[in-house]
Structures are given as structure tokens and as C-alpha cells.
């Protein structure tokens, strides 16, 4: 009996549509997040992440509707992040069917949000989402950023993650801005460092480009592996990832 490493596709949703391009076969509408979510469920995803990248808060109702329609049909865990600013936002997402809520920028601006949300809703549903990049300005050599990696938050990334976990974050979605989009593999040094420092599950994100990239991230300490474009463009299937991990004696859900 061993816990399976989770494989998690991430969908970027903007004003109700999946963006960053999706080229999935056999979909009527590749831009519909609900249809794509169900397709990933069929394809063996262990969990799903919706990242709401809508700039304005005016479209929140659209997001709630997508979450609701997805959760009504897909019986695997669903994490929703992006634009979560208050415990009211967390409550709305959970009520509409999200199982976990990702907190990123608003947590950096107001760490009390993480404490409050985890106290009210339980730490198991509060995911610290953090965009990390290398720097010479911090002790660890990594900093937490905002604005999609373009601005420094002033926090050492490792110190911030420890702080947020102490406040009650139950999981860390660790996104490497250096690796993101490179397809050169997950940021193993970063994963190893965070694994040494915190005792909550880590979702590795950023850099997955080929089958060989997945197992090393597990060895480095990741409990779950997130990827977007390699799945969206059909370059790699979830089943292929799981078969590759199994070859490396990593436990996966069949």
C-alpha cells in the first residue's frame, strides 16, 4: 500500500475559455474548460487545476459557473486558483464545487488571508500557489514573485513557503518561473530545497517537456506533478506519463 503520485493537468481559463492553446483530439470545442476537464478525467488525470487568469473580477460569475458545471460531472478533486483575494472568494469557489483553492498574490499582500482561510475551511483545502525565480538577492537563492514572475515580492521564496505553511497552507503548488515554458524539465534543485523545509505535499510545476522529465521530480521530493502544454497539445498523454513513472518504480493510479 503506497500513496500514488498524482498527475495534474492545469487549464488556464480567461473569461470562461481555455487559453494558451489546446490541441486535443476528439473535442467538439477545445476552448471549453468543462469539456476539456471531462476529457482529462477520462484520460486518467488524478486531479485538475483551473487557473483563472481573468484580469478583472467582473468575470468571477463565469468562473463559478465553470467550476459548478465541471464539479457536477467530474468526480475527481478540483483546485481553482487565480484572483482569490478574500475568504469570501474562497467560500464562493468551495460552494460552487472546488475542493481546494489556490492563494497566490493576495497571500503575499495579506498573509492573514492564508491563516483565516485555513482556519475557516480547513488547511486541506488551502493551496499555497507560489511563482519562484532565481535571484542573488535572497539567502536561499530563490525569491517569490508576483505578476507572473515579473516582479519581486521581497520575500525569500523558501522563507515565504515556510511562513505560509505555518499559517495553515495544506499544500504547495511550486511553480518555477525559470523552468516555466522551457520544456527543459522540472526545477529539481528548487523541489529538493522546499521538500527539506516543509512537511506538506508539494505539486511540482513548470518545465515538463518530455516523458523523462517526470520521474526525477518525484525523486527530488514532489508528491504531485502538474503540466499544461505537453498535455494540451497531445505531445504526451497522462497514461504515457504514468507508464513511464511505473517503469521507475513510482506508484501511480492505474
Amino acid at each position, binding site marked *: *500500500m*503506497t*500513496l*500514488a*503520485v*498524482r498527475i495534474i493537468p492545469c487549464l488556464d481559463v480567461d473569461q470562461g475559455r481555455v487559453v494558451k492553446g489546446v490541441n486535443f483530439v476528439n473535442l467538439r470545442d477545445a476552448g471549453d474548460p468543462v469539456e476539456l476537464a471531462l476529457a482529462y*478525467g477520462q484520460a486518467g488525470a*488524478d486531479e485538475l487545476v483551473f487557473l483563472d487568469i481573468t484580469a478583472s473580477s467582473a468575470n468571477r460569475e463565469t468562473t463559478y459557473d465553470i467550476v*459548478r458545471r465541471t*464539479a*457536477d*460531472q467530474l*468526480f*475527481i*478533486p478540483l483546485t481553482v486558483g487565480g484572483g482569490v483575494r478574500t475568504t469570501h472568494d474562497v467560500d464562493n469557489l*468551495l*460552494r*460552487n*464545487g472546488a*475542493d481546494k483553492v489556490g492563494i497566490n498574490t493576495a497571500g503575499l499582500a495579506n498573509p492573514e488571508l492564508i491563516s483565516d482561510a485555513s482556519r*475557516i*475551511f*480547513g*488547511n*486541506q*483545502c488551502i493551496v499555497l500557489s507560489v511563482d519562484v525565480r532565481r535571484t542573488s538577492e535572497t539567502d536561499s537563492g530563490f525569491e517569490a514573485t508576483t505578476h507572473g514572475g515579473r516582479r519581486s515580492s521581497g520575500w525569500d521564496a523558501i522563507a515565504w513557503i515556510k511562513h505560509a505553511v505555518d499559517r495553515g497552507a*495544506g*499544500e504547495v503548488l511550486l511553480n518555477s518561473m525559470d523552468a516555466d515554458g522551457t520544456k527543459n524539465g522540472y526545477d529539481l534543485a528548487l523541489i529538493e530545497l522546499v521538500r527539506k523545509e516543509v*512537511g*506538506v*505535499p508539494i505539486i511540482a510545476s513548470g518545465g515538463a517537456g518530455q516523458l523523462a522529465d517526470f520521474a526525477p521530480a518525484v525523486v527530488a521530493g514532489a*508528491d*504531485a506533478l502538474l503540466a499544461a502544454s505537453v498535455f494540451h497539445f497531445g505531445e504526451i498523454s497522462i497514461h504515457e506519463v504514468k507508464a513511464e513513472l511505473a517503469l521507475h518504480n513510482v506508484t501511480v*493510479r*492505474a
Partner: protein
Amino acid sequence: MSTVVILDYGHGNVRSALRAIESTGVTARITSDFDDALSADGLLVPGVGAFGSCVSALRSVRGDQIIERRLAGGLPVLGICVGMQILFASSTEHADTNNFAGLDQWPGIVRALDAPVLPHMGWNTVRAADNSHMFQGIAQERFYFVHSYGVTSWDLPDHDYLEPPRVSWSHYGEQFVAAVENGPLWATQFHPEKSGQAGLTLLANWVSTFSEKS
């Protein structure tokens, strides 16, 4: 058609539970209405968050009485996640000197699991009890767990005149109770409503204990 009530006391992803139960072909509704919850063919008790706040919220809708009376009358109750934990005698979660008291349907203390990474989050296997009805057809499947606390020993003595409870186990750092079938009272530490097709089958197995075949 049979009816399942999902007890609404502010603790749990009731929407997913509703849809998952509906997928088994019965009518389901979310309510905290005392009489409705008492008379439904099946009662599902969800639960997320901390043990103490779950028990308090449950008591505030008289959920403890609803469960007690249903069980006295042999009516099915299914507790999920913290909805299972609160059925035990007490919990050490956020407790100072005294443990938080639970509903005490079963002896046992809910305590933090001894594992390097918590919460225990993800898909794990279950060692199903012999002749389990709950796991019929799905004993080899994985189920979705999210919890940091659990019950690591089963302390209810067998009774000569009653059918012994069927206890199923999982392992994460140590052994813990994954599910119990004890007469009309069933419970799972994992989330069947989030465990894909295997979870829906489990819920259908539960529903089949009180729903007439159509």
C-alpha cells in the same frame, strides 16, 4: 424512488456529494431539516475541517440526535472523512488537555497520523474487509484521501449476537481505519464522491442496501 439526504451543517463539499449520490439513480437533497434527515431512506454525513468545529456545527443542527435515532431504528447512515471521525469517542485535534468528544458510536481516539508528509493527500489503496459489501467489485481500486488525523486501532469488541463490524484498512506512515460497515452505520475516511468511478460504485453499493431494485 429512494431518497438520500445530505446533511447540511456547513462542513463539507455537499454539492459534489449530491451529484455523486444522484448518479446512483436515487433522489438526493441537501438539507439540515430535522424531520427530513430523520425520515430519509439514507443519510449522508459529510465533513471537512477540524474535528471540534465539525462536532459543534453538527450538534447545532441536532445532527447527533438525528444519527442516534436513525441508528436506533436501523436506518442507514454514511459518514465521510471527518464525518467518519466524529463517530468515534474523541479526537486530539487542536485539543489542549482534554480531547474533543465525538459522537461515541464507536470507541477509539482520532489522532495525528505518524507520517513525514501531511495531510495524507491523494489516491491510496484499501485492504477491504472480508465479505465487504461496501467494496464489492472495487476492492482493488484506489480512493481519494485528504486528512491528517485518523483512527489507528479498532477497539469495539465483537458481540455474540450481532454481526461483527467489517473494518477496512489503509496505510500511510502507519495503519489506519479506511472504512467501517457496522449494521446501518457505514463510514469512509476517504472521499467516495471524489474517487472517480470507483467511488461512484461504492456509493451505489451503499444505496443498494436500502434502495429497491428497479
